[in-house]
């Protein structure tokens, strides 16, 4: 059962091959048995999940169920869930039970998905390795000495280890795509504004976007159908009709033009990763696509611009954690300033504090123009690069990450080296474009991700391009040897 995709589970439940209770119990047992090794869950929602499953089975018996009723899913612990702890991977929120439900998790509940639990993540989604979590590192199921990527590392590892059929993630600078690449799964970050951010704990509000992490592009399309759409509670959510993302999956790719940005294959990209991507491009040629070299000249500047804009927004968003209204409070504060400073000093981990400090500096008097405004100007240049290229091509392809999964501990002492692992993913967030990562090969037994970037609201195109690749290859069906 744990090898089936969501598309297959939909049929299995409809054909009564198994019940939701059986399916849910099977996944809960796997989590209880295996997750000691991976640490991909922060909270397992055992009792409640089984109750939800019973209800889903009753709905099916009465003939009132929608197609997804009874299918289990895990949610990144950044989505507020009423009644289940939401920690955001932080000591600050270690015991926080949100008083309201995020729109994303609400939509899944309305579709009668079963919440298996909440997955581990870098603290406040700040990290590329899942090592900044207050609840400990997550191990990559392909090699437990290695990181799963981040910040949605728990979601990626849980899907790869077959502890859940799919999971939700969020992506501010690559946090869905990079862990999807490093764990050998499929993940999509939609256009900024496609999915409501309501109840998704904010890191950098002009960059954050949620998306599904799955075993196939078809599953990603099914879940994106559930997650997308306008929400009046998120003022930046876009009011545009949501197409059925599964409709165009089976269309052939004849005539597709793929852009290859030279900057995304430059120094720092492992030569074996590059080779795997070129082999994937050969598959696309056979599928009828034309490949064209393009240039995104401001790519190198996206890293410094991102590391001003994201920390600046974070420093503002995280000012709400004051030790007064909710979250961690220090012991015996001597005055109000001591209460603020020690609650924040003790409640936040090193990386979160680092980014708050960088953001505070960039926004402070005398430095605002040189850092923040400068970064926003570069943001426009980065966006224009993409706009120019999309006049000539349908999609852009590149490696998702410069290397395969690195060792736990390898980059923790060098934040700038850690930041550089997002070099191929962050420009997309600055521009607000949709992009996905699909498994495209193995190097020394570790997965390589192919990144596919599309024009605004071209999610259906991305999913079609990914699905056609998955019809022609079986990289997405590879599993870590250790699972056998």
């Amino acid at each position, binding site marked *: 059962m744990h090898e089936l995709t969501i598309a297959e589970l939909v049929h299995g439940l409809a054909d009564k091959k198994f019940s939701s209770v059986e399916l849910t119990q099977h996944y809960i047992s796997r989590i209880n048995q295996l997750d000691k090794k991976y640490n991909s869950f922060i909270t397992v929602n055992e009792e409640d999940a089984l109750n939800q499953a019973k209800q889903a089975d009753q709905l099916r018996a009465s003939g009132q169920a929608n197609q997804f009723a009874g299918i289990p899913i895990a949610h990144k612990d950044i989505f507020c869930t009423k009644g289940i702890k939401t920690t955001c991977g932080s000591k600050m929120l270690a015991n926080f039970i949100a*008083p309201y439900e995020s729109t994303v998790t609400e939509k899944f509940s309305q579709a009668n998905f079963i919440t298996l639990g909440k997955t581990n993540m870098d603290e406040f989604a700040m990290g590329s390795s899942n090592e900044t979590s207050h609840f400990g590192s997550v191990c990559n199921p392909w090699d437990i000495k290695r990181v799963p990527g981040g910040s949605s590392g728990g979601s990626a590892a849980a899907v790869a280890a077959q502890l859940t059929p799919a999971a939700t993630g969020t992506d501010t600078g690559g946090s869905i795509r990079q862990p999807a690449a490093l764990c050998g799964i499929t993940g999509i970050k939609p256009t900024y504004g496609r999915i409501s951010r309501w109840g998704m704990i904010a890191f950098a509000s002009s960059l954050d976007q949620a998306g599904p992490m799955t075993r196939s592009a078809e599953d990603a399309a099914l879940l994106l159908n559930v997650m997308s759409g306008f929400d009046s509670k998120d003022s930046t959510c876009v009011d545009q009709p949501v197409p059925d993302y599964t409709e165009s999956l089976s269309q052939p790719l004849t005539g597709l033009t793929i852009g290859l940005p030279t900057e995304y294959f430059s120094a720092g990209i492992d030569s074996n990763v590059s080779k795997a991507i070129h082999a994937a491009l050969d598959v696309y040629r056979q599928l009828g696509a034309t490949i064209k070299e393009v240039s995104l000249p*401001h790519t190198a500047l996206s890293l410094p611009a991102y590391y001003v804009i994201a920390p600046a927004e974070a420093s503002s968003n995280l000012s709400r954690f004051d030790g007064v209204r909710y979250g961690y*409070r220090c012991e015996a504060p*001597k005055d109000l300033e001591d209460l603020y400073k020690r609650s924040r000093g003790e409640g*936040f981990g090193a990386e979160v504090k680092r980014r708050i400090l960088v953001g*505070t500096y960039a926004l402070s008097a005398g430095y605002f123009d040189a*850092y923040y*405004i400068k970064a926003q*100007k570069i943001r426009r240049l980065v966006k224009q690069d993409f706009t120019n290229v999309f006049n000539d091509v349908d999609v852009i392809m590149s490696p998702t990450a410069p290397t395969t999964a690195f060792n736990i501990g390898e980059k923790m002492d060098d934040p*700038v080296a850690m930041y550089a692992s997002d070099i191929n993913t962050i420009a997309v967030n600055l521009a607000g474009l949709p992009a996905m990562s699909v498994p495209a090969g193995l190097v020394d037994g570790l997965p390589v991700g192919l990144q596919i970037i599309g024009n605004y609201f071209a999610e259906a195109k991305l999913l079609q391009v990914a699905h056609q690749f998955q019809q022609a290859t079986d990289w997405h069906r590879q599993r870590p040897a250790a699972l056998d």
Partner: protein
Amino acid sequence: MALDRSDVEGIAHLARIAINEQDIENTTATLKDILHMVDQMQAVNTDNIEPLAHPLELVQRLRSDEVTETNQRDHFQQLAPQTENGLYLVPKVIE
């Protein structure tokens, strides 16, 4: 720019974050590394480029000025570290 220990203490005060004495040196060093990387931005000429605050450059929606939220004070205060008679408790601010 050169960042020293006292700059870091100043920024930490603005951010209301206590940094342990033994961590200040290391924090200063990593912030320097990050700002050094960020300074690559200065290499590009951005004269006459408009800053981009939001990827889709949308205009903020307005809604009619009606009360839509209900008062949930008791519910929200259950999350607070310390409350009394519906108020949030903090150390004494005014003597």
